[in-house]
């Protein structure tokens, strides 16, 4: 199969690669770039576990082709912690017991990242709306909502 050259930025690093047009973005990130935080749960866009940000917008990487990310800036949960330190969002998930098995967590983190970048002080209903896009089989979701609320607080404190 012919390979298509693509050029994109992932978590701040520029990559130039050639991929099959059918190669999924999720596989490209995980296998070609070795970025393992993005997990794949259902492979047809329902569960949201594979959510990444493409130019700031949450997308299902299992339903996106790598070629679609050509020229884009992609962010994954691998890039959240900086300098070996958990981000405020990750810290909040830890404090509020926002994860159990941790498999859906990267998707939840990216959904929350998108929300908090657009809306630094979301209401509980706005957080619930965002979180309800993804499946979690362990937690019953409440602690995820609380984690995002706590992250918003931590980020406000950090901004002061």
């Amino acid at each position, binding site marked *: 199969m012919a390979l298509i050259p693509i050029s994109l930025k992932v978590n701040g690093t520029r990559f130039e690669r050639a991929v099959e047009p059918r190669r999924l973005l999720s596989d490209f990130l995980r296998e070609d770039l070795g970025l393992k935080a993005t*997990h794949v749960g259902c492979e047809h866009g329902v569960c949201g576990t594979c959510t990444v940000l493409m130019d700031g917008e949450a997308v299902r990487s299992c339903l996106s082709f790598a070629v679609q990310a050509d020229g884009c800036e992609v962010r994954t949960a691998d890039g959240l912690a900086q300098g070996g330190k*958990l981000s405020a969002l990750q810290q909040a998930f830890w404090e509020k017991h926002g994860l159990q098995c941790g498999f859906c967590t990267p998707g939840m983190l990216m959904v929350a990242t998108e929300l908090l970048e657009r809306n630094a002080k979301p209401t509980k209903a706005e957080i619930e709306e965002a979180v309800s896009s993804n499946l979690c089989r362990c937690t*019953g979701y409440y602690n995820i909502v609380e984690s995002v609320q706590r992250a918003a607080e931590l980020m406000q404190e950090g901004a002061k």
Partner: protein
Amino acid sequence: MTATFPKHIPAEGYIPPSRQQEPPRKSYKYIGQNLKRVEDPRLLTGNGQYIDDIVLPNMAHAAVLRSDRAHARIKRIDTSKAKALAGVYLVLTGAEAKEMTGATAQFASPPVVQYCLAVDRVRHVGEAVAAVVAENRYVAEDACDLIEVEYQDLPVVVDPEAAMTSSGDAVLHPERGPNNIAQHRTFTFGPVQEDFAKADVVVKRTLRWGRSGAQPLETVGCIAAYEPGSGKFTMHTNSSFLNYVGWLVGASLGVPASKLNLIPCVTGGSFGSKLFTHKVMTLAGTLARAAGRPVKYLEDRLDNITSCDNHGSDRLYRCELALKRDGTMQSLRFQVIDDYGAYFQFGVGTHGNSLCQIVGPYRINSIQMELIAVLTNKCQQGAYRGFGSEVTNWMLERMADAAADELKMDPIELRRRNLIQPGQFPYVIPSGNLYDSGNYPAVLEEALRIAELPKWNKIRDEARAKGRCVGIGIATCQERSVFSATEFWSLNGTENPGFTLTSSPESTQIRIDPTGAIHVTLGSPFWGNSPETMAVQIVAEQFQVDPSQVNIVYADTQSGFNSTGPGGSRFTVMIAGAIVGAAKQVKDKLLRVSGHMMEADVGDLEFRAGKIGVKGVPGKEKTIGEVALFAHYFRLNLPAGDAFASGLDANYVYDHPLTTMPAADRSHLGIFYPIMGHMCHLALVEVDPKTGKVAILDYVAVHDAGTVVNPMTLAGHIRGGTAQGIGTALYEKFHYDETGQLVTGTFADYLIPTLAEMPPAIRVGHVETPSPFTEYGIKGGGEGGRMGAPGALSRAIEDALSQYGVRCDELPLTPRKVRELVRAGEKR
């Protein structure tokens, strides 16, 4: 303590003495704290190392061709086009695989034979027919598309009652005999006939529990490597029971356990469905050996949902509950037909499980169960949070509600009247199992207090006055914990039980290194629970050290020993037992060594905040690090003899705390699941009778899991389990049509609750009745939420739709099903 026994069980010597070494205390330093989970930082940063994150040099990828037929003979398979595709290393059919690999592990007795790839015949949609190994998964799937299979269709059996009379070509496993009945036996515990004869009222119901399953977001996978020289397999696996039954995979592959090392990894959820994963390991091993290079096989969602071997119970009950006029329950008898699907890996283990709490929290004097296990053209059953007991909980709660309706009693009052009382423990139930401790009225009252029931009643009444359908439901249920293995064999024919008394132990190694850091090795993996956090809190309590001083290591099967794994809500209790045993040996040695260092009597020493000191002499102390350094490097300054051998370490195997043999005639099953938790769930729901949509307005769950190690993580299990219970009750169903096609084969059709389906909150309460048999009095609590929610929700919906005279006797109560009930009610 005075135990309570049913008349048909001889009390003398029935209950072995407790082996508890650490009695429960009034307060602890680390146990009972909401310690943040030790596991989380690496999971939050993408460093979990789940099975799909592991990459081996030269690793190839496998894909599986699955049957699109429910029941057919395989006439011919042509793999030539697939083999010719560039990048394909290997194509293997079932017949070819059978030449090198035996049947998969079986726990039923007698077994129903299954292979990792179907041989000659497919028995359900999704059954593996052939496998491809290629340079990547894309090519492997391309090659699957090029395999040509010629089938000869056979009659399809999907209805469990029809399966009872199957014959001829509709029989799935003709070598077993001429029908699809895998087991048919009646068990009687206590004077059922007499109790029914004395009853004032007999309440009858037919109940149908639909098939749902765990469907964790991570599927099952294995990376297998084979060394042709040594003949040794190494496998990375997300199995939970690798140190328990992993060696059976070696048996399938034809190698001894000395040539099979299973390496655990972090697992993205199981809820029971990854206990064994032996079929996937057996397949990956077969492919790796045949392909001559490491092979990764990871199920995709379709593989998992059609063929995970872990669909949940699928039962039809015909029940009769005998009561006195005042609502006192006397006896319960039922027929249950359970649709096990195409294979029978665990036999009727899910009914063995059910029988450990078959009277629920109620003083029911006798029980009769006619069990009919049938085989049909569906994915086989396995484990899902509750392992069959969640179904009997629902059945009992449905019968309690039915009795309340017929006797015109308040369902809460009827339950209150029948609860086993706090002074009656330990309480032996008719099936022989023991309930170790409990305070069921306290759990009920705490739930009612949290819910503020008068407020709920007001909400319901006001809504009804406006024509809205609001209802309240209750469930008071048992939550057995600490799995042993009796359930897997006690219901087998006594002429061929398959096993005898089984301990299912758990082990640990505790080692203190020269710096004083404590390394704890677990023989069981992380499956989404909190094994590291549990172990850290208990070790910190034992040594009175800061949790940051404790490091957790997971053993592979080559280095691990005698562990069972998480499952049956056992891990926290069992690892606590192992830690207490190992810690005692290490602490004794620390005291011996530090006694010499400080010239003090061992009896005068105590552990205090990371140090060992002389009682009553502040300042006269050594840190654990100082003692550890001495014990490691300066042993020759200490007395001769093994008691002072260099180093500080101990292994300990903790056996199941309390389990005994069934009666030879099966008039009782012995004590086999006695660490008994309890719960009360209350639900307030609104039903839209026009659409059938159920909205949960409020929800309360109070659980008693004995001494709580970490209230935060226990509450996580309760809420998460309740979410799964909501799914089972209202949304989730593996629906097979009459041709055996699974029509809910994706997450777009198999509906797992999102946050939008959840109540605004699940308000959780804890009551703590410590176990007299486990260390610190801990009980398990991993499955609870799913074991209570279906009962509470069924009643709440029934109550909400009371004007339609609705009975919620079938799950799931999907909007469509609720509409059916309303429509039928409107016609009446």
